[in-house]
């Protein structure tokens, strides 16, 4: 229901600037966070933490800036399939290297 409303909002030009500013602020805070966190040594997890932060930032850009939240669900399925195959590529590559 809320998605339908959002879709209608988009079509009727009722998109709010506020949400975009909020997401932008969150993105800046997350960037600041990842730059600060570099100083702390998490050892093996440093890269993993940085990638998790990047995934959260990308999720915000995809859903709000790129309107995936208010698009037809078929868009989300398409993006999901594309990302799935990227993840499969990484999994295959690393499973290969891990046993060499």
């Amino acid at each position, binding site marked *: 229901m809320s998605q339908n409303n959002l879709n209608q909002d*988009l079509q009727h*030009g009722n*998109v*709010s*600037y506020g949400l*975009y*500013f909020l*997401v*932008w602020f969150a*993105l*800046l805070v997350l*960037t600041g966070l*990842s*730059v600060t966190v*570099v100083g702390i040594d998490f050892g093996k997890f*440093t*890269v993993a933490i*940085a*990638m998790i*932060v*990047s995934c959260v*930032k*990308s999720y915000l*850009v*995809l859903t*709000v*800036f*790129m*309107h995936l939240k208010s*698009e*037809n669900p*078929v*868009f989300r399925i*398409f*993006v999901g399939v*594309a*990302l799935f195959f*990227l993840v499969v*590529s*990484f999994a295959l*590559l*690393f499973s290969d*290297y891990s046993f060499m």
Partner: protein
Amino acid sequence: MSSAEHAVGHHVHRDDEGARLGMWLFLFTELLLFGGMFLIYSIYHYVHQSEFHLAAKQLNTMFGTLNTFILLTSSLTMALSIAAIQKEKKALSVFLQLVTILFAVFFMVNKYFEWSAKIQHGIYPGSEELLMKSNGEILFFGLYYLMTGLHGLHVIIGVLIIGYMTIGTVKGKINSGNFVRLEAAGLYWHLVDIIWIFLFPLFYLIV
């Protein structure tokens, strides 16, 4: 429904959703292009961990962080420009598109100074200085120039596309009833932003 859409609605068949889906399909090919390079980066990082960390220390985090803030803010102004055109605020939309272009230029100026500094220190693909380093460091800097270079090329193309949309908006071809082209340009620009969101920590923060 706006008056503009009403006026053309009877004569022209348009499928905005199909147009946006087409743009997304194009973005998936970009995902393949950059995804392949991220695969190469990840496996060499895995094989040469300490050398990658050593090399990453030589990059200026300040340049990277500043450029991240610039690109994130340009994504905001791009999204706002589409919201503005939907609200029939043409002048505001044009202004926001120009600000987006300005941020993109700032990004490239920064990149120019960053690359110049590295090249002056003798670190560029094939340089004597670089070839004396370990294999891992050579790979790191090779990928650094390749990936940030290709990303920079996307920023330049983005500037041209947004500039074209700005002209269209000024001329009224892009308006509150027909702004799918501006939306497609926005999708492209946000993808360029997302790629940088991953490039930034992988090259500047893995120290």
